[in-house]
């Protein structure tokens, strides 16, 4: 009883301590902080792995060495995943930017179009969009795998970018528009030079955060046989029957990329001052 009680106590303290921490006044991200976070995640991962290992051992022998002979393939898959993610990021920011701007436009028809796009695409599973884009549209237009994957992912991710950008623009006080317009600036100039620079600064962390999601979502391109990380893992699994090993390896790949990115996002969040 008392042991259970102290355990609860311990965890609740941990939670409150972490909450307090996140409201710390702004400052530099210290290395101690980074190391602490890394250690925490490391401990959790190690725990899960040990559990898995013990459990699986009953019926399963690990052959980690198999992976070494496929390191070239993993590397290729990793590069493709990164290429897909970065190209999609670029396209999504452009498309998302346009849609985001349309959704704050004074013209009702533009706003409606933007809403229709965002709502339409967001409510369809990404997997379906990818399949539709490659096997449907792609077949008609003779679209190769990579462009088809980029188009599908861009269509999906740009809706999130659009919403982030819209939020950023709407978060700027109306007074800034009045100030710009009352000085004789046109509405376009006010948008370009006054509102957007402030909005972009505000949404950079959120955009970076969405990039993490994008990297993870890119694994769905494997269903149209684009040779990226997830497909590589599947191929290695079929060739070697080393299911755990091949998938745990790519899990580690995804994790290290996404975790690094979210750390960077955190740093960005603290670097950008809140007025």
């Amino acid at each position, binding site marked *: 009883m008392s042991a259970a009680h102290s355990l609860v106590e311990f965890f609740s303290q941990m939670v409150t301590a972490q909450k307090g921490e996140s409201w710390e006044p702004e400052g530099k991200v210290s290395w101690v902080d980074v190391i602490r976070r890394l250690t925490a995640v490391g401990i959790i991962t190690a725990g899960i792995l040990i559990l898995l290992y013990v459990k699986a051992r009953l019926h399963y022998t690990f052959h980690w060495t198999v992976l070494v002979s496929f390191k070239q393939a993993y590397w290729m898959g990793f590069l493709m995943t990164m290429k897909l993610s970065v190209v999609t990021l670029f396209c999504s920011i452009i498309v998302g930017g346009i849609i985001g701007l349309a959704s704050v436009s004074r013209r009702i028809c533009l706003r409606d179009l933007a809403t229709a796009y965002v709502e339409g695409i967001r409510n369809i599973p990404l997997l379906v969009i990818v399949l539709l884009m490659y096997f449907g549209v792609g077949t008609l237009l003779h679209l190769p795998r990579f462009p088809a994957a980029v188009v599908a992912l861009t269509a999906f991710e740009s809706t999130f970018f659009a919403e982030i950008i819209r939020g950023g623009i709407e978060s700027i006080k109306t*007074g800034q528009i*009045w*100030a*710009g317009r*009352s*000085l004789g600036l046109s509405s376009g100039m006010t948008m370009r030079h006054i509102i957007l620079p402030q909005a972009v600064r505000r949404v950079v962390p959120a955009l970076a955060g969405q990039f993490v999601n994008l990297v993870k979502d890119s694994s769905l391109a494997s269903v149209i046989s684009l040779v990226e990380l997830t497909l590589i893992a599947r191929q290695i699994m079929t060739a070697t029957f080393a299911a755990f090993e091949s998938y745990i390896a790519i899990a580690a790949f995804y994790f290290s990329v996404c975790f690094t990115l979210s750390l960077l996002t955190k740093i960005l969040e603290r670097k950008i*001052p809140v007025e």
Partner: protein
Amino acid sequence: MIQVEKINKYYGDFQVLRDFSLVVGIGEVIVVIGASGSGKSTLLRCINGLERLRSGEIFVDGVKVNDPKTDINRLRSKIGMVFQDFNLFPHMTVLKNITFAPVKVKALSQAEAGRIAHSLLAKVGIPEKWDAYPAALSGGQKQRVAIARALAMQPKAMLFDEPTSALDPEMIKEVLDVMINLAREEMTMVVVSHEMGFARKVADRIVFIDEGRLVEEAPTEVFFENPKHDRTKRFLDQIL
């Protein structure tokens, strides 16, 4: 200089200004008072075309404000506006805040605009702050920069929307002093403010608005010594 003729302004179904008329002559200083929500700030935004009217007309310097054919940006560059919460551009230095519009709208050279900016900063008493960002300034300094920014367009009239309401008491004077100097230089000014000391000192006329209507308008002396309407008397009792 400014003619407001029977304007009606609505926000949705809510009527903010009712048949409101006002004439401001060249070099005149008008102080507008009234309870919050009475339509004072809306009036100022209407004068430089930031709000659409349901009916009525506004002329500034002989040009109709609420006319689609009017080059509203050109007209606005002749009217300076100062806001309650400053609305400086936080991503620009003080100097850039002041020079941005003259360079973009009036096509002044950066050097010329900079020269004007530095002299205006000296005029409002903070010449040393030219390369600071707004976040590093006190409220009073921000408002003085905002005034300098408006003046940099060399406007023919200035609109002040409760310029001291967001300031700590000890900073109010530094802003009012700048405005008093402006009034002495014969700038046409419409000031929404509850600084009665300021009003008595520089206003030519006081206008009292209640629920979007012009209740009373009189030369400063007369307004304070001998208000006609009961509503005005009650309001003055409350704030004096």
